[in-house]
C-alpha cells in the first residue's frame, strides 16, 4: 500500500503530463493550434527536458545543443532514404551517432568553466553548421536541405497524422518519466551538487567531471531523439537545424518556463511554439522581437520563469486564505 502511494506521489507530474499530452488532439484545436503543431510541441518537450538535465541540474549553459538535434536529424534522414523506411533502425543509428559526437565535444568543452563552456558549445555547433553547408554537402543537400525521404514506417504502420503525434507523445512521456527518475537518483543529486558548489563537491573526493559529462551526454541524447522525431514528423532536414537560432530557441524555452524544474521548460516549449505559430498571426514578422522582449523581462524580473510565477501566485493565494 505504502509503496503504491509513494509511486503515485513520485510520479504525479508524469501522470498529469501523460493526461494532458494524450488528450491534446481533443482540446488543442479549440485553442487555434493546427494539427501537427501538437506533435512539434511534444518533440520540443523532449528536447527541453533533456536540456534541463544539463542546464537545470548542473547549471552549465550550452549554446550548441542544435548540433546534436541537427546531426541526429540528418542521420535519420539519410538512414530513411538509403537504408530502410523503418524508423526504429534510423532512430537508433542517429542517436548513437549524436551521442558519440556529444561524448567528444563534452570531453573537450567541459574542461572549462561556465562562460568558456557556453562559447565553445556555440562554436562547435556553428562548426557543424558550416560543415553541413560545405564538405558534407553531398550527404546533407547543402542549402536546399535533405529531402526525398520515403514515408516513414514503424514496421508496417505508416507514420502519418495522429500516429506520429501519439508516437511522439508516448516517447515524451517515457523520457519525462526517466528524467524524473534521474532527478531523484543519487546521480541526479550529484549533478545538482555541481550547480550548488562544484569546488566543495570535488573536495569531498567526488569526480565532478564524470557527472558533468554524463549530464551533457544524456541531454544530447534527448536532443538527438527530438531531432530524429522531427524527421519522422516532417521529412525534411535543413541546415537551420544546426544553427545558433535552434540552440537559442531551446535556451529561451527553458528560461521562460523555469530552469531546473523539468515541467517548466515543457511549458516554455509549448508557449514558444504556440506563440510562434498561432499568436504570431497578429504580430506578423515582429513576433521574434516581442518574444525577445518577453525573454529579457523574464531574465531580469522573474529568473524562475513561469514556474516562479505559478509559485508566487500559489503563495499569495494560500496566504490570503491563511490570513482570513
Amino acid at each position, binding site marked *: 500500500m505504502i509503496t503504491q502511494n509513494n509511486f503515485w506521489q513520485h510520479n504525479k507530474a508524469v501522470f498529469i503530463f501523460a493526461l494532458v499530452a494524450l488528450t491534446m488532439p481533443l482540446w488543442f484545436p479549440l485553442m487555434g493550434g493546427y494539427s501537427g503543431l501538437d506533435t512539434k510541441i511534444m518533440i520540443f518537450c523532449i528536447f527541453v527536458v533533456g536540456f534541463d538535465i544539463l542546464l537545470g541540474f548542473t547549471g552549465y549553459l550550452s549554446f550548441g545543443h542544435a548540433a546534436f538535434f541537427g546531426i541526429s536529424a540528418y542521420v535519420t534522414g539519410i538512414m530513411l532514404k538509403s537504408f530502410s523506411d523503418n524508423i526504429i533502425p534510423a532512430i537508433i543509428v542517429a542517436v548513437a551517432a549524436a551521442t558519440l559526437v556529444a561524448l567528444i565535444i563534452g570531453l573537450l568543452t567541459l574542461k572549462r568553466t*561556465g562562460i568558456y563552456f557556453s562559447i565553445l558549445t556555440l562554436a562547435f555547433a556553428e562548426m557543424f553548421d558550416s560543415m553541413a553547408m560545405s564538405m558534407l554537402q553531398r550527404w546533407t543537400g547543402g542549402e536546399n536541405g535533405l529531402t526525398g525521404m520515403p514515408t516513414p514506417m514503424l514496421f508496417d504502420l505508416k507514420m502519418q497524422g495522429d500516429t506520429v503525434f501519439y508516437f511522439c507523445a508516448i516517447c515524451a512521456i517515457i523520457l519525462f518519466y526517466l528524467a524524473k527518475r534521474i532527478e531523484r537518483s543519487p546521480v541526479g543529486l550529484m549533478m545538482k551538487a555541481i550547480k550548488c558548489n562544484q569546488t566543495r563537491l570535488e573536495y569531498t573526493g567526488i569526480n565532478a567531471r564524470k557527472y558533468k559529462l554524463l549530464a551533457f551526454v544524456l541531454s544530447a541524447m534527448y536532443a538527438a531523439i527530438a531531432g530524429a522525431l522531427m524527421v519522422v514528423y516532417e521529412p525534411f532536414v535543413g541546415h537551420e537545424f544546426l544553427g545558433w537560432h535552434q540552440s537559442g530557441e531551446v*535556451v529561451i524555452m527553458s528560461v521562460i518556463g523555469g530552469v531546473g524544474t523539468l515541467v517548466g521548460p515543457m511549458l516554455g516549449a509549448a508557449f514558444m511554439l504556440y506563440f510562434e505559430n498561432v499568436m504570431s498571426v497578429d504580430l506578423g514578422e515582429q513576433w521574434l522581437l516581442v518574444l525577445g522582449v518577453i525573454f529579457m523581462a523574464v531574465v531580469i524580473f522573474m529568473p524562475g520563469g513561469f514556474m516562479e510565477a505559478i509559485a508566487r501566485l500559489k503563495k499569495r493565494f494560500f496566504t490570503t486564505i491563511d490570513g482570513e
Partner: protein
Amino acid sequence: MDMTLNAFTLSVLTGLQLGSIYVLIALGLTLIFGTLGVVNFAHGALYLIAIYLAVSINNALGFGLALILVPPILFVIGVLLERGLIQRFYNRPHTDQILVTFGLAIVLQELLKWIFGANNIPFAIPSWGNGIIMLHDYLPFLEGFVVYPKWRMILVVVAIVTVSAVFALLHLTRFGLVIRAGMRDAEMLQFLGVNINRRFMIVFGLGAMIAGIAGVFGGPVTQVSPEVGMQLLVPSFLIVVIGGMGSLGGAVLAGILIGMAQSFTAPYIYLNTIIIYLITVIILLVRPRGLLGAKGVFE
C-alpha cells in the same frame, strides 16, 4: 606548398584585413569581460547598430559625418545599456549575464530588421577610399603588377590606430592605470576608495565605441544585413578565448592569427570552413588559458 611571393603578400594583406575586423570586435569584448566580468552576447548587435547608423548617415549626409557621429553615439548607447541593464547583473550568476545579453542581441537584431528590412543595404565607399593600391610601387620585391583594394588597406590602418589608442589609454593615462588595476582586483580597488562603477560605465561605452569604429569602416566590407552581427560574434568570441579571456594583447594576437589562418587556407575550401574551430581546439588542449591569458583568470 607552392606559392609565389606575390600570392604570399596578398594572403598576408587579406589575413591582416580579416583580422582587423575581428580584432576590433574582440577588443571591445575582452575589454568588457576583463573589467566588468561580463560576457557580452550583445556585442555583435552593437556592431549591427553601428553599421546601420553608418550606412544611413553615409548615404544621407556623407561619410565624414558618419565617421564623426557613429562612434560617439555608440559610446552613449553603451553607457546607457550599462546603466540601464548590465549593472543590474554584476551580482548575478554568469549564466544570467549571458542570457540577458543574448536576449538583448535578439531584440536589437529584430528591431533593426524591422526598421531596415532583412536585405543587404549597399554601403557606398567614399570617393577618396575607392579604387586600388598599386602594391608594386611600394614593395619592390613584388614581380609585375600587384594591386589591392584601397578600402581594405584603410581598414587595416584604422585597426592599427584604434588598437594603439586603446593601449595608450590603458598604459599611459591614470584612467588606464585604474582600469588595469580593476581588471586585476576590482574588490581591492573599491577598498581603496576608487569609484569603480563610473569607470565600468565608461569601459562599457568604450567597448561599444570600438564596435562603432569597426562598423563605420567595416560596414562596406562585411555587408549591412541583420545576420552580420551574429556571424562576427562567434569568431570574435573564439578570438577572445584563444587570446585569453580579458587579455587585450591576446585578442590582437589571436585576431591576426585567425585572420591569417582563414586567408592562407582560402584555396582549401574544406579546411577553410573549420580552421578557426580547429585552432580553438588545439589551443584549448595545449594551453587552456589562451595564448596570453593570465593565470587564474576563469581557468
